[in-house]
C-alpha cells in the first residue's frame, strides 16, 4: 500500500524535471571558433581606427552571429564591440557610433545643469535633487561610454566569438595593434603627381607669355559677341540683364562668371547703358555689387552707379526664375547674359528671354543644361570657354598662359587614356589602379 502511494513520486523522480531540460543544447551541434584573427591600423586615415580580419568558423553556416571583443593594453577584461552576421570576415573598429552619443550626453548634461540652476534659483528642492541624481547618472554613463572609445597610440587586441543559441566559442587572441593618424594619404599620390605636373605647365606658360612669346587663342564666337551685345543695348537704349548663375560663390563657374561681369559692367558704364544684376545667393550678391560699383569707378563714373541695379531676390529656385522672367518681360532688356552654373531653370530663363526678343549669350559648364542654352540662346559659351573669358577679353599674358597649359593637360590626359587602355587590354594588372584615388 505504501509502495502504491510512493510509486508516482518515484516515477516523478526518475524523469528529469522539465525545467532542467534544455532541448536546444541537447540537439545543437558544438560549433568551432573563427581563426586567424589579425588586427592592423587602418592606412591613410585620420586615426582612431583599427581593421580586424579573421577566417570564418568552419561552422559559419550554422552560427547565429559573431561577437567582436576588444581589450586595451591596460584593461583586464574584454569589451563587447559589435554583433556581426555570419559570413563577415572583417570589421573596422572606430568611434563613429560612440562620438555622436558622447556629444548627445554632453549636451544632455549641459541642459540638466541649466535646469538645475533654474530650480536652485526658484528654491525647488525636490526638483533640484532629482536633477542632481539625473546628472550623476548621465555623468557616470558618459564616463563609461568614453572608456569604450578607441584611442590612438593605445595597443588593443581582439577576439571573435562565434555564437549559436547559448553557445559562445571564442577565437584565439589577435596580435596587439595601435591606431594612428597619417600625415600623408599615399593613395592620393597620383593626384599630387597630376597636380604638380599641371601647375608646372601653368607656371611655364605664364613665364613664356611674359617673355613675349605669342600664344594663339582660337576665336570664341560667344565671347566675340559680348561687345556687340553691349553695343546693341546702348543703341536700343534698353538695359542689359546679367544673371551670374544660380550657384554659390564656392562654385568655380560662378567665379568665372564674375570675371566676365567685370568686363561687361565696365562697358555698360562707359556707354551709360543700364545693367541689371539679379542674384540668387547672398554672398554672390555682395560680390557682384562690389564688381559693378568698382566698374563704374574704374571708368570714372562712380556717380552713375545705380545701387538698385544689383540686388538679391531669393534663394528659392523657381521663385527666382519667376522674378527674373518678370523683369525680362517688363524691362525688355536688349541683351541677356546667363553665365555661370545653372540647373533646371536654364530653359525657363532662356525661353522667356527669347520671347522678350533679347539677344542672349549663355555660358555654363553644366553639360545637362548646355543643349537648352544652345537651343534658346543666340550664342553659347561651352564648358571651358567660360573659364577662358577673362583671358580672351583682356589678352593679358598671365591669363593666356594657363589656357595653353590646359591644352597640354588635355593632350597628356588623352595620351594617358590611350596608353592605359592598351595596357589594360593586354591584361596588365596595376593599370586600373593608376587613376583611382
Amino acid at each position, binding site marked *: 500500500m505504501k509502495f502504491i502511494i510512493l510509486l508516482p513520486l518515484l516515477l516523478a523522480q526518475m524523469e528529469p524535471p522539465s525545467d532542467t531540460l534544455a532541448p536546444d543544447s541537447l540537439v545543437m551541434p558544438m560549433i568551432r571558433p573563427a581563426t586567424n584573427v589579425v588586427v592592423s591600423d587602418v592606412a591613410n586615415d585620420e586615426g582612431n581606427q583599427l581593421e580586424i580580419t579573421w577566417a570564418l568558423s568552419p561552422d559559419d553556416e550554422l552560427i547565429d552571429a559573431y561577437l567582436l571583443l576588444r581589450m586595451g593594453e591596460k584593461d583586464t577584461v574584454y569589451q563587447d564591440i559589435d554583433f556581426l552576421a555570419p559570413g563577415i570576415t572583417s570589421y573596422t573598429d572606430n568611434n563613429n557610433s560612440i562620438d555622436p552619443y558622447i556629444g548627445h550626453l554632453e549636451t544632455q548634461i549641459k541642459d540638466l545643469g541649466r535646469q538645475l540652476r533654474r530650480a536652485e534659483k526658484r528654491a525647488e528642492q525636490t526638483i533640484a535633487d532629482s536633477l542632481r541624481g539625473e546628472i550623476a547618472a548621465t555623468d557616470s554613463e558618459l564616463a563609461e561610454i568614453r572608456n569604450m572609445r578607441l584611442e590612438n597610440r593605445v595597443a588593443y587586441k581582439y577576439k571573435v566569438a562565434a555564437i549559436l543559441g547559448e553557445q559562445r566559442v571564442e577565437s584565439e587572441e589577435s596580435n596587439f595593434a595601435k591606431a594612428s593618424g597619417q600625415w600623408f594619404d599615399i593613395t592620393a599620390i597620383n593626384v599630387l603627381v597630376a597636380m604638380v605636373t599641371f601647375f608646372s605647365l601653368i607656371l611655364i606658360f605664364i613665364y613664356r607669355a611674359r617673355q613675349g612669346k605669342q600664344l594663339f587663342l582660337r576665336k570664341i564666337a560667344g565671347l566675340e559677341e559680348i561687345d556687340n551685345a553691349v553695343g546693341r543695348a546702348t543703341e536700343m537704349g534698353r538695359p542689359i540683364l546679367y544673371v551670374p548663375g544660380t550657384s554659390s560663390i564656392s562654385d568655380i563657374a560662378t567665379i568665372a562668371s564674375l570675371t566676365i561681369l*567685370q568686363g561687361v559692367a565696365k562697358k555698360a558704364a562707359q556707354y551709360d547703358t543700364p545693367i541689371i544684376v539679379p542674384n540668387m545667393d*547672398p554672398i554672390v550678391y555682395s560680390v557682384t555689387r562690389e564688381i559693378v560699383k568698382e566698374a563704374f569707378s574704374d571708368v570714372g563714373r562712380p556717380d552713375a552707379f545705380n545701387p538698385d541695379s544689383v540686388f538679391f531676390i531669393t534663394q528659392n529656385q523657381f521663385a527666382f526664375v519667376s522674378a527674373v522672367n518678370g523683369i525680362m518681360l517688363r524691362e525688355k532688356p536688349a541683351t541677356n547674359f546667363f553665365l555661370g552654373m545653372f540647373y533646371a531653370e536654364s530653359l525657363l530663363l532662356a525661353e522667356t528671354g527669347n520671347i522678350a526678343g533679347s539677344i542672349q549669350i549663355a555660358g555654363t559648364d553644366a553639360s545637362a543644361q548646355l543643349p537648352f542654352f544652345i537651343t534658346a540662346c543666340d550664342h553659347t559659351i561651352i564648358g571651358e570657354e567660360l573659364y577662358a573669358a577673362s583671358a580672351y577679353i583682356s589678352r593679358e599674358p598671365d591669363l593666356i598662359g594657363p589656357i595653353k597649359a590646359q591644352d597640354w593637360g*588635355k593632350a597628356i590626359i588623352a595620351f594617358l587614356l590611350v596608353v592605359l587602355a592598351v595596357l589594360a587590354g593586354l591584361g596588365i594588372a596595376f593599370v586600373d589602379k593608376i587613376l583611382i584615388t
Partner: protein
Amino acid sequence: MLKRRIPLMLTLVLGIAMMIQFFIPHRYSQVIYDTSIEWYRIAYSFAFILGLSSFITHHWRKIRHKKEGWHYSPVALGAMIVMTVVGLIGLTPGMNWLPVNWQGQQVSVFTYLFRNFYNNMMVPLGATMFSVLAFYIASAAYRSFRAKSLISILLLSAAFVVMLSIIFYNVLPLGDIGEWVLSVPNMAAKRGIFLGASLAGIATSLKIILGIERGYLGGTK
C-alpha cells in the same frame, strides 16, 4: 591698396593651406577643414543679412518711386514679413500659443499658418513654374529640330532614334540603338566637356590663389 592686398594674401595663404590639407588625412587636418566649413557658414549668415537688406531696400524704392510693376513689391514685402513672423514664432520648439487642431494634433496657430502657407502656396507655385518647363522644352525642341544644315539633320536623326527606341521599346526592331546613342557618342561628348571644364576650373583656381585672376575682386588693378 590694403583693401585689395589683404584679401589676395589671405587667398594665397588659405588656398595653399587647403591644397595641402587635401593630402593630409590626420585628425588635426580634418579639424582645420571642419573649422573652415564652419567659418564659411558664419560668413554666409552675415551675407544673408546683406541680401535681406537688399531685398527690402529694392522693393521699398520701387514702391516709393512708383516704378513699373511696383504693385508686386508690397506683396513680396508682405509675404516676407508674414512668413518670417509665423516661421519664427511657429517653429520655436514647444510653442503652443493659440492652439488649433491640425491633422489631429494641437499646434500653435503660427505653426499651422507657416505649414499651410508653405505647403499650399510655396510648393504649388514652385511646381507651377517647374511644369512650364514641359511646354518650353516642346517649343525649344521644335526650333532645334528643323533640318536646316547637315548638323541639324544629324541632331534630328539622333533625337528621333532615341525617342522611337524609348517610346516603342520592344515594338520596333531598333534594339539598343537608343541606349547606344546615349551611352556612347553622347557620353563621349559630355565627358570631353567635363574634362575640359575640370582642367579649366583647376587652372582658374590656381590663378585665383596666385592672385593672377582678380576680376572677381572688381578690377585688375
